[in-house]
Structure formats: C-alpha cells, structure tokens
C-alpha cells in the first residue's frame, strides 16, 4: 500500500473520533449548553466500554464477539450519558456556571478514565496492557468481499462498523436539527429560551435530553478510540487532546453536522500530517501539530468578521435559563 493510501486511512480513523465528539457537542450547544466536559465524557465512554468488554470476556471461556460489542456499546452510552446528566443537573436545574461545570466534568471524567483504565491493567496482571481480543475483533470486523477490492476497498471499506455509524449519526443529526419540528424546537431553545418557553416548549426537558444524548454520542467517540483504534487496550492519557479538538471542530463546522464530516477529516489529517511529511525535523513537527488549532482560530476570526447570521453560535450559548428572570 502506498504511503498516501495509509495516510488517508489514518486520517479517516483519526477524524471519526473527532466527528463523534463534535456531533455530541453540536446537539448539546444547540440547546444552549456550552459543555466543556467533552474530553471527560469521551474518556468515560471509552473506559466504560472497555471495562464492560473486559469483564464480559473474563467471565466466559469463549466470548462471543457481538455480545461483547453490545455490552461495550451499552456501557459506553450509559456512562457518558451519565456525565452529561451530571452536567445537566448542575447547569440546568441548579444553574451553575457552564464553563466551570464543564471544566470540572473534564477533570472528573479524565480522572475516571485513567483511574479505571489503569486499574483494569492492574487487574489483568499489571503488565500495563489488557486484552479484549474477541470484542475489539468484533469492533474491527470489516465488510467481507468489499474489503478485498484493491485501493477502493482499502480506502472505503477497511474500517469497523463504528466508522460508518459515525457518518450515519451525522446525517441523522443534521436531518433532525434542520428538517424536523423537534429539531426546530431545540434550536429555538438554544437561541432564546424565554421565547421558546413562551411558545410552549418544555425548555428544561429539551436541554436535559440534548445534553445527555450529546454526552452519549461523545462517549461513542471514546469507545471508538479505545476498542477500534487502540484494539481494545488502554494507555493512560493516550487519548490526548482530542476532546478539545472536537470542541474546536464544532466551531470549524459552524454548528452544522454535515460540515463536521469533512472538517473532521481535515483535522484528522492535520493531526497526523507531521508523521507523513518526509524530512521534518523534530521542531518542525511541533509546528505542524499546532495546525488544527491555528485553523480553528482562523475560522473563528473569519466567522466573526463576516458576521453571517447563519454562521453564529446559538445566541444563548452559555447562559442558564431562569423563567422568573427578566431579560
């Protein structure tokens, strides 16, 4: 396989992690909640899925891959949605500051992930690596036949099902937000909660659901990273700053899921570009690693310069809603 092909493949795998995170944050932000807990929720989803698979495989002699996959997905969804629930309860019901709560959730979630991830490897004998071969095999199963087509198969059909699921979720989310009544209501909540309330929309319910579902989608990103990308192993902090990049991607995509698709591939490519440019010195590699952030800042500035209404963040992003407040 040519280097270019490998680069494109890796770009896609890197991008999928970010795409999940960005989708989760888009639906959350559309409800007016700026959840900086994305990195935390991604860690929580990843480690919960891994723990589920690990406990299942340790409890049976012959683990069945699809059972492990189901358990892992369920565990990841529940755990990361729980992260979203903590955030929702604090910011929506108790009206705590969103930035601070999000950062606290990230502290908690990253600690949660590293604690359980690290403890799992200790349980397995302390060699620093645990094996969930059957389940991760299930996650990495590719489509038969299609996979064997040269080049096309490598480029489009060499991935596990979560990759395609990410694209499906993105399209579904885009349809939901912009083509359905419920999506319109949700966007109304994020733009101006008081108006939405006056129109009879249950603001609290929309905010809770959007934030928890958003958390669950973020968690799938963590799950994908752990079970597919890392083949069902855990290394503390190996997830890196991908959670923050996912938040950056939301801005880059200007709160549109479909824009996040190519954005995620662009970010994924920029994230690993330094490995594929021949002759880069170590210091130049570091410059390349900062590219996704420069691109995000650039987009941020451009959107504020052009002031196009449809490119702006949801108007009440970051604000708690209290019905008895007069605005």
């Amino acid at each position, binding site marked *: 396989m040519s280097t270019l092909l490998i680069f494109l493949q890796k770009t896609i795998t890197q991008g999928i992690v970010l795409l999940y995170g960005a989708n989760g944050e888009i639906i959350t932000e559309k409800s007016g909640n700026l959840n900086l807990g994305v990195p935390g929720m991604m860690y929580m989803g990843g480690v919960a899925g891994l723990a589920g698979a690990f406990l299942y495989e340790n409890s049976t002699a012959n683990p069945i891959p699809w059972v492990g996959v189901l358990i892992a997905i369920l565990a990841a969804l529940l755990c990361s949605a729980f992260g979203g629930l903590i955030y929702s309860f604090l910011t929506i019901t108790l009206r705590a500051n969103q*930035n601070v709560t999000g950062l606290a959730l990230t*502290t908690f979630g990253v600690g949660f992930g590293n604690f359980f991830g690290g403890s799992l490897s200790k349980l397995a004998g302390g060699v620093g690596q645990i094996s969930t071969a059957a389940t991760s095999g299930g996650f990495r199963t590719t489509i038969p036949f299609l996979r064997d087509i040269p080049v096309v198969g490598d480029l489009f059909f060499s991935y596990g099902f979560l990759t395609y699921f990410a694209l499906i979720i993105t399209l579904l989310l885009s349809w939901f937000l912009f083509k359905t009544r419920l999506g319109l209501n949700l966007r109304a909540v994020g733009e101006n909660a008081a108006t939405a309330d006056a129109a009879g929309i249950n603001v609290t319910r929309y905010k809770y659901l959007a934030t928890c579902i958003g958390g669950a989608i973020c968690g799938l990103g963590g799950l994908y990273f752990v079970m597919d990308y890392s083949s069902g192993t855990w290394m503390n902090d190996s997830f890196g700053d991908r959670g923050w990049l996912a938040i950056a991607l939301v801005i880059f995509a200007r709160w549109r899921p479909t824009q996040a698709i190519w954005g995620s591939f662009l970010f994924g490519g920029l994230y690993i570009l330094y490995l594929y440019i021949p002759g880069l010195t170590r210091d130049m590699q570091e410059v390349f690693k900062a590219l996704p952030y420069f691109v995000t800042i650039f987009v941020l500035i451009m959107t*504020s310069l052009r002031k196009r209404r449809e490119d702006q963040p949801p108007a009440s992003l970051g604000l708690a809603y209290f019905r008895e407040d007069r605005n």
Partner: protein
Amino acid sequence: MSATTVKEPWVHVVKRDRMTVGKSALIHLAGVVLALIICALVIFMLTGLNPIDVYAGIWDGALGTSRRTWVTLRDSAILLCIGFAITPAFRMRFWNIGAEGQVLVGAMATAAVMIYGANWPSWALYTLMPIAGVLAGALWGLIPAVFKAKWNTNETLFTLMLNYVAMQAVTYAIIFWENPKGSNSVGLINMQSEAGWLPSIADNKYLLTIFVVLVIMVLLYGYMKYTKQGYEISVVGESENTARYAGINVKRVIIRTMALSGALAGVAGFLLVSGAGHTISTSVADGRGFTAIVVAWLGKLNPFAMLVVAFFLVFMQRGSIQIASQFGLNDSASEILTGIILFCVLGCEFFINYRLEFRHEEEAVKA
C-alpha cells in the same frame, strides 16, 4: 383569585436577594461535607479501604511535614496568583479560559532569559526575567482581546485554542533548549550556578513566592475596588451598553484588562520557573490555568474567599498524591475526588442564589 382551583406547583424556585457572608459560608461548608461523604462512599466502593484512613492520608500528604506544608502553601499561592489573573477578566464577563496558555508563555519567556542570561550580572537577570514573563503573558492575553474588542470574536473558544498553541510553542522551545541533546527535556536550568533562581528568605525558599502573591493580592484588591479603571471593568461587566452610554471606551477597557490578566498569569509563569521548578516543560502549568477558573468562580472573585478555595484544592491534590502511593491507588484518584468536590460545591451555590418555596396547603385552601 377566582374560586376555580389553580394548581400551584409543589415546589418552585425563587431568587434570593442577598445572603449574609456567614450563611453563604455555611452552605459552602455543607457542600464540602456532602462531597466528602460522597467521596468516602466512592472510595469504599472502589477500593474497600476505610475512608477515614484515606482522609488521614490526605492530611498527612498535604501538611504532614514542614516541607510538605510549605510546598502546599507555595502551590496554593501560585494557583491563587493565576486566579487573580483571571479575576479582572471575569469581572468584565470576559471568559478568559486561556490562563493555562498565558502561564505557559510567561514561563517560557522566563526560562529563555534564564538560559541566555546565565552569565549576566544578577541584577539584569532578576529584572529581565519577570519583565519577560509579564510581557509574554500580556501579549498572549492581548491577542484574543483585540479580536473581541474589534470584531466580537468569541473569547471562550479563542483563549481555549491559544492554550494548545502555547503548548506546542513550549514543546518547540524545549527541542531548541534540550539538555542533554535528544532528551526532549530541558532539565534544571543553571543547575550549578543557580543563576535566576529565586533566592531564599530566612533560609526558606518558598517564602518569596508567597510574598509576591500576597503583594499582588493587595494591589489587585486596591485596583479593582478603588481606582477608576477598576470601576470601569465592573461597569463593562454589568452592561456594555451602560458603559458605552456613560462614555467608557469599552474596547480600550477590554484590551487593557486582558493585558493585565495575561500579565498576572505571566507572573505565575515566572514564579513557576524561577521560584519552583527551575525548568520548563509543557506540564509546568499542569492544569492550574483551568483549576484557577474554578478558584476564581467559587471565590466569587473575592481575593480572601479565593485564598480559601485555592488552599483547599491544593490541599486535596497534594494529599491525593500521597494516598495514591500509600494505598497503591492510581494517581488519577485525586482527579475523581476533586471532580466530585467541585460538583458538590458548584451545586450548593444554587442555594445561595435561590431558595425553594414549597406549596402552602392552607393558602391553597383559602384561595
């Protein structure tokens, strides 16, 4: 009211006017106690250890010996310094979550002076180090401020992104300065001569850092409370329109305040390199820029309350490092505990700003 029964909700939320300091402190205390109970349950469920033993371990780790106490105090001071850096920006409702990056560039500039100025006369070195740190931090704070002032660019996300740019910049610089070559770390700067290391006062190498932060505390308190500029910050924070109407140049206030905010973060960077670590790495700020946001917020931007919060958080962190080794737990246990405590304290704030009013049965009957 008509005779038809109007269904009153079982409970509804009412905003409080104001609460006495004592009462609000009591609510915070209740939040902390609740957090400690939840943490105890979590500790017991996860590890089966006796939570009392674990808490004793935390106490021992943070304040067990005089050296540990001083380190806890110094780290609290530095965290507090970053909290002070955020204070003017937050007072202006400018969500500067880029303190991490501002500290990093401040630290980097300080380290640069230390490395290149190893043989300079010490007065030049000790003057230039803080100046470099302050200028670098101020510059890093100015960038998002200018864009915010001119084009209303979202500052939360801009400052967040700049953190990572700063991190890459430091990694880049480390490769430049690494010692020995290829080690990917700078090591202790000027290990032999100790040039540029903050001197000890009365044989105590932690005191000067603490002293600097206390001076900043007093100055900042005075600046925010008694100067025209401090007042302008508050007005802009309350309402930009009011400020504009009152003839305040809002753009200038935003830019000036963020320069100050970044500069104070730069001081923290200087203290971390010159006063504490004597080296530079990407983990020199170690998440303090983010923790300081929590300090500033929970302390309600009041320097004295922030002092309590900062000390408590550092106390928990340093204690948790100790229990991690003592009980063979994973280091990350401290982050889980910190997270739970933050959740509880953030949650309890609700009861300071609001109160719950339950349905009065008798009144409902009367109506």
